[in-house]
């Protein structure tokens, strides 16, 4: 985009955008800052900003009380596992709907989305009972499957809209050249679909990482991810803002960092077919 603009206008844009950006980011920044304060400083009025005795005490206390690395590891396994499993199922499904559409394709797609309409709180009892039957309670396998299922419709839809934008002529040309189904997928489609796949993966990891109902209700000690870790720091006895901030920072830091590094990929593919 090579639009020529005056420096004045560019400065104005920059100023406004930065103010809004910082405003939106501020709650996170404040949480991170608070996590390095003492409890007394955390509630001080007037608030203390940057000039206080930075302390790691809160992190030490949190680490002492909960086994952070295990929660983190569970989060990684569950979010990662459900994403991989989901992609294995979603890519072929989206591919077939995008390139071999039938009369029912649209209906199937919309039906898939509608499966997300079942309110989780309403089906907790059935799912819990099923989980007991199969011994899946408090297992990473169980959570991985559930999170995969709840996000599958979104993944398929996102991939479908992305695949659809790949022009069909390219495929026909490849077929003319004698490419089989396998070659077609591997050498023609995949490279074109990478941005869409990448951002689908990222979005799914974010959604799975932040899912806070099933991860809390279907786990106890062994498979509990970071959402459960946080639940032990909300309103305990006494002052807790600084410790809550430290725990919060620890819970969101990994996904925040991942998100920042992959921000470009996420943006490129997050179209949901909106671009046309």
């Amino acid at each position, binding site marked *: 985009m090579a639009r020529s603009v005056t420096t004045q206008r*560019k400065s104005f844009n920059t100023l406004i955008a930065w103010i*809004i950006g910082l405003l*939106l980011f501020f709650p996170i920044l404040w949480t991170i800052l608070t996590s390095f304060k003492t409890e007394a400083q955390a509630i001080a009025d007037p608030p203390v900003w940057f000039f206080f005795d930075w302390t790691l005490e809160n992190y030490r206390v949190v680490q002492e009380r909960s086994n952070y690395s295990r929660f983190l590891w569970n989060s990684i396994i569950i979010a990662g596992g459900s994403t991989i499993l989901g992609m294995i199922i979603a890519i072929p499904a989206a591919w077939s709907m995008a390139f071999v559409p039938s009369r029912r394709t649209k209906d199937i797609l919309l039906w898939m989305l509608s499966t997300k309409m079942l309110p989780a*709180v309403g089906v907790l*009892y059935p799912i819990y009972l099923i989980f007991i039957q199969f011994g899946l309670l408090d297992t990473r396998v169980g959570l991985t499957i559930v999170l995969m299922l709840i996000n599958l419709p979104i993944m398929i839809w996102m991939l479908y809209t992305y695949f659809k934008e790949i022009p069909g002529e390219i495929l026909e040309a490849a077929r003319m050249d004698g490419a089989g189904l396998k070659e077609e997928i591997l050498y023609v489609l995949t490279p074109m679909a990478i941005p869409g796949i990448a951002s689908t993966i990222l979005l799914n990891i974010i959604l799975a990482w932040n899912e806070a109902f099933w991860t809390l209700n279907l786990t106890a000690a062994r498979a509990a991810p970071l959402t459960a870790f946080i639940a032990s720091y909300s309103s305990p006895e006494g002052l807790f803002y600084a410790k*809550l901030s430290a725990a919060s920072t620890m819970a969101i830091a990994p996904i925040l960092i991942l998100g920042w590094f992959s921000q470009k990929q996420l943006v490129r593919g997050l179209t*949901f077919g909106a671009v046309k």
Partner: protein
Amino acid sequence: MSTKASRSAARLMLAPAVILLLGWMLVPLTLTLIFSFQRYLPLRGGFQGWVGFENYVRFVTSSAFWPSVQATVIIVGGVLLITVTLGILLAILLDQPMWGQGVVRILVIAPFFVMPTVSGLVWKNMFMDPNNGLLSHLWRSFGADPIIWLSDASMLSIILIVSWQWLPFATLILLTAIQSLDSEQLEAAEMDGAPVLSRFWHIILPHLSRAITIVILIQTIFLLAIFAEIFVTTQGSFGTRTLTYLIFQRVLESQNVGLGSAGGIYAVILANIFALFLMRIVGKNLDR
């Protein structure tokens, strides 16, 4: 263009997804349906006989039902209004040339990475607390009485918290859509001296219509289910009891699984009516 072979291959590739989702939908739904016709009180020993439509009648005639539907609509509608409006403006702004565009974009999307429980807790305690929250300090520093957010402006508080989380998502999708806008067309309009507002109204907005529909559809699916934000802040007090939260109270607080299940079925029906309406629009777009 598809041959018979490729069609059956395609069917095979679609099968796992369809079968899994069918199972994921049918099994819990069937069980919920069965429970909803039962007197099922776990704390009184579980199954206590079939009661026909009693649970359905009771759920709908309870004084909490319509207010909860209303609360759901207000929250979903409020969040959609805020995120779509601000999302469009923010997307247009971020599309402009500026210094540090990448960093600003990161700052803007960051709230999307925060888990709902954390954002609820942080907003409730560190910002909206009337005694120790940052906003109360701010109000006091101007000599004003702090707003008691969670009780006096409970709906607004929830809408604000949820909007904060979803604004990045809306912005991102709208931004991708704007970037695909033919800039020559815009420049031409600019040269012609079309005022900003008319350029927005006649070129940008129509171009974004599809993206806006998609934002609304996807967000609605997630917003109808919001739970954690309410659970950690108001716990359904002060008129913030949504349909989802009401079902939670029936099933888990009152431990009346039959009644709650009937509520779950209502929620599915209402959500699907709403979604059908939305999907009609999106469905049309998918055909294009």
